[in-house]
């Protein structure tokens, strides 16, 4: 009985309190600014580490209370204000995917900054408030820290309720969500209100980070950042809107986690009991997934979303020529041995990961479906290659990844980009924790979990030189194949689905089948990349190659770099892949640049908030404009003259102009 009380009342209430504080910060910023902050956990992490820096006896050893007040009432609001000024003000009216990329960029940048400022070589610990002191409640010892957490959550709940419903500022914060324009027409400044929301949200993230830090098994940036999953899950119960339901979500999650921990401690599940602990670790991800799948978004999938990217339509011939050039360069580099072995290792990884990025070009760039799970999915094929051998493994792996990709797509059939991003992120973490993780459910996956799996190469391609060229050939073939798809019937269907799902549905296009097809195909390509990556590495293949945030080349920065390269073109994937492997490579060769290279993907992701088209398209446009300027032709002038008689007065659209428009829009009317 005492244990039941301890786990299901005392422990659960304290966890629920912390999750509720974190989630309420997330909900406040989302409902008042419309930006879902993927970096919410990372901001809490930075504030918690700052608190450690200020108050820990191993650091500056300042008194706890002033340090806490400084973190919550100065640092948190300052970070919020800065974020609003530097990042969020540029996101006004941006597409959902741009805000997703920008806030993930912030997450990655903050994790990198924490890694630089607080190197992980040192073990840190944040002590409880009033460490060692406790009171006895119902025969259970309850630490002061837990009581403080609970009181803080209650205070936050009451405070937020009073702010949002009983003050003019709170009314305006809710009014901004309803209509920012109307709010401004009433004389309130939506920008200033947004600033206040960010300041409040960041302080709440900091409070949650500081309260949870002593409870963590490891006080590390990634562990603390990923605690945001609990906040996501709780906030999703409230559909990112309702604070009372968010608090309920936090309580349910805490009860599940602690219930599983209790069952494990009591060995209620017999020989399966140890696995319950792993299930407890995966509980927030599972709950997030379930809530996202169950949640009803009425007709959301048919609502068109603004998509911030321009989509070029290169000819198959031009891509084939570029890819032939890539294969030629790869062959020359490989045969001549111009680079050191270490560099070649990284370049090979780049080619394999480039194939994973190509899967994103298809899925996100062309079909408008966000996925943060591509690298995680790639791990499925790597597992298959390790277990079943190179040829069978690759075939089975690619098919299995396609199937898993289609399963991920099922909830996506009616989801908006934000929920899709969250679902795929949760799925990637689920794979990482339950399938690839150190406590993997399948015991024989242990070598993969610890990064000691070994993958053989395809017979005949065992040598590094041959396999490197093979990687380039596969990359080239996938790129050309995708371009054929882009220029064909399926490509036009994808473009149409992205532009207006409702219009497609009314024209008889089966959105369900199209989405399933594109998810499965994209996952299969990612799987191909993952299988080949395992073969290229040969040894030490494992979880960290396919993790979301850990390892040298993790999944979230991969998405960022793919977008930086240019997510709408296959050449963008080449640039992205090169950047992805070269940044750590440069960092390892030039120590002075190491920190900058670690920070680069995150910072570039943040920078994309203003220029979401990526490097390749921007360079291509700059070249096109320069060419037009030389020829004294305004590249933008032609479409404007359509339908006018040259002097701006309305006229008829000529047959030539119609053909030009058709070509521009990819239509085929057979006039």
């Amino acid at each position, binding site marked *: 009985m005492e244990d039941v009380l301890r786990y299901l009342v005392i422990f659960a209430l304290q966890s629920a309190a912390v999750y509720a504080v974190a989630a309420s910060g997330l909900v406040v910023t989302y409902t008042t600014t419309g930006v879902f902050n993927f970096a919410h956990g990372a901001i809490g992490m930075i504030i918690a580490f700052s608190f450690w820096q200020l108050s820990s006896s191993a650091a500056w050893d300042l008194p706890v209370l002033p340090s806490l007040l400084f973190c919550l009432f100065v640092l948190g609001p300052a970070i919020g204000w800065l974020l609003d000024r530097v990042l969020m003000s540029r996101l006004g009216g941006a597409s959902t995917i741009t805000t997703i990329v920008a806030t993930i960029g912030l997450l990655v940048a903050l994790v990198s900054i924490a890694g630089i400022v607080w190197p992980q070589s040192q073990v840190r610990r944040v002590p409880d408030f009033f460490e060692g002191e406790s009171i006895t409640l119902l025969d259970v010892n309850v630490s002061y820290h837990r009581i403080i957490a609970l009181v803080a959550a209650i205070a936050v709940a009451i405070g937020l309720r009073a702010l949002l419903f009983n003050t003019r500022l709170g009314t*305006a914060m809710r009014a901004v969500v309803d209509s920012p324009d109307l709010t*401004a027409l009433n004389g309130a400044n939506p920008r200033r209100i947004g600033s206040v929301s960010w300041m409040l949200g960041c302080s709440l993230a900091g409070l949650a980070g500081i309260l949870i830090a002593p409870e963590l098994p490891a006080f590390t940036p990634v562990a603390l950042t990923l605690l945001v999953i609990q906040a996501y899950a709780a906030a999703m119960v409230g559909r990112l809107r309702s604070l009372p339901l968010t608090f309920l979500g936090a309580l349910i999650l805490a009860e599940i986690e602690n219930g599983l921990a209790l069952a494990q401690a009591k060995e209620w599940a017999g020989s399966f009991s140890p696995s319950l602990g792993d299930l407890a670790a995966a509980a927030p991800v599972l709950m997030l997934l379930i809530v996202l799948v169950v949640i009803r978004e009425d007709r959301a999938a048919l609502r068109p979303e603004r998509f911030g990217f321009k989509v070029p339509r290169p000819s198959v011939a031009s891509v084939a020529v570029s890819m032939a050039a890539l294969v030629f360069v790869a062959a020359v580099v490989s045969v001549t041995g111009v680079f050191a072995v270490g560099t070649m290792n990284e370049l090979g990884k780049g080619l394999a990961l480039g194939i994973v990025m190509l899967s994103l070009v298809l899925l996100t760039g062309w079909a408008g479906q966000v996925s943060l799970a591509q690298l995680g999915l790639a791990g499925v094929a790597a597992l298959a290659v390790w277990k079943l051998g190179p040829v069978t493994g690759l075939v089975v792996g690619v098919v299995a990844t396609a199937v898993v990709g289609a399963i991920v797509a099922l909830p996506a059939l009616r989801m908006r980009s934000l929920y899709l991003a969250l679902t795929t992120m949760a799925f990637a973490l689920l794979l990482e924790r339950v399938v690839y993780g150190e406590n993997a459910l399948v015991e024989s996956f242990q070598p993969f979990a610890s990064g000691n799996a070994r993958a053989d190469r395809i017979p005949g391609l065992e040598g590094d030189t041959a396999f490197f060229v093979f990687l380039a050939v596969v990359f080239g073939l996938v790129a050309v194949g995708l371009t054929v798809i882009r220029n064909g019937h399926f490509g036009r269907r994808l473009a149409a689905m992205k532009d207006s799902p409702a219009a497609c549905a009314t024209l008889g296009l089966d959105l369900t089948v199209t989405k399933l097809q594109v998810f499965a195909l994209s996952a299969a390509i990612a799987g191909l990349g993952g299988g080949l990556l395992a073969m290229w590495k040969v040894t030490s293949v494992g979880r960290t190659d396919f993790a979301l945030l850990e390892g040298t080349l993790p999944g979230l920065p991969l998405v960022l770099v793919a977008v930086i390269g240019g997510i709408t073109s296959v050449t963008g994937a080449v640039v992205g892949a090169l950047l992805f492997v070269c940044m750590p490579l440069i960092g390892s060769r030039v120590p002075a640049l190491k920190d900058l290279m670690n920070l680069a993907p995150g910072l570039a992701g943040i920078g994309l908030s203003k220029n979401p088209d990526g490097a390749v398209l921007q360079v291509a446009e700059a070249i096109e404009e320069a060419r037009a300027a030389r020829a004294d032709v305004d590249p933008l002038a032609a479409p404007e003259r359509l339908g006018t008689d040259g002097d701006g007065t309305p006229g008829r659209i000529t047959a030539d102009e119609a053909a030009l428009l058709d070509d521009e829009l990819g239509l085929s009317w057979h006039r």
Partner: protein
Amino acid sequence: MGDSGLPPVGDPGLASVGDPVPAPVLELRGVRASYGRIEVLHGVDLSVARGSVVALLGPNGAGKTTTLGVISGQLPPTAGDVYLAGRRVTGAASDALAGVGLCTVPEGRGVFRTLTVRENLRMATYRGVRLAEVEERAYGLFPRLGERRHQLAGTMSGGEQQMLSLARALVTDPEVLLLDELSMGLAPMIVDDLYQRVRAVAEQGVSVLVVEQFARTVLGVADVAAIMSTGRITSVGSPSAIESELSDAYLGAS
């Protein structure tokens, strides 16, 4: 009002000495505006005198709502200027303009649907009037709103929402009132009632610019009417003179 966030006083020569006509409270000079690369206003000139009701009429897509958008600070013009009581306010933010007495009732029920009636009225306090006073005046103008003060605005009927929208604008003593398609989707009786109230506030000195697609009702309360077509004002005159031109403007005859 304190710091209004507006640009400094600009061209003071709006009304030259001895000018028999009072200086317009609101004036647009050669205003051009674009959505992206497409220009939709091609040089709009318009003025609204103190205490008068000006009706801006025209077919769909003429640029009426865009003109209001430029005046209320929602869309910066690409050329030309907007003057409010002789001050150049071109490009000023909506909230700053609202703070100095420019009040807009936007197209399609300008209410916060997820806020209650009382909370909607609380938003009017950003223009410097206390909540108690706002409530007293609003419920005096439209007693129905008092009965529904705790109801969510989005759950009220179209006419009640329009009352709320108008009440929020009227209770803060605006200098200039911009009304966009007040009649949209409402029964003719309600529209008549709302426009009678608009006439009444104009007689108290408020300058009103009304944009309407359905012209007949508004012509009954307007002092001046203007027809807009393809981004230009094509004629200005008395309501009776303009009424005779309406069918040409709407049906595109030359």
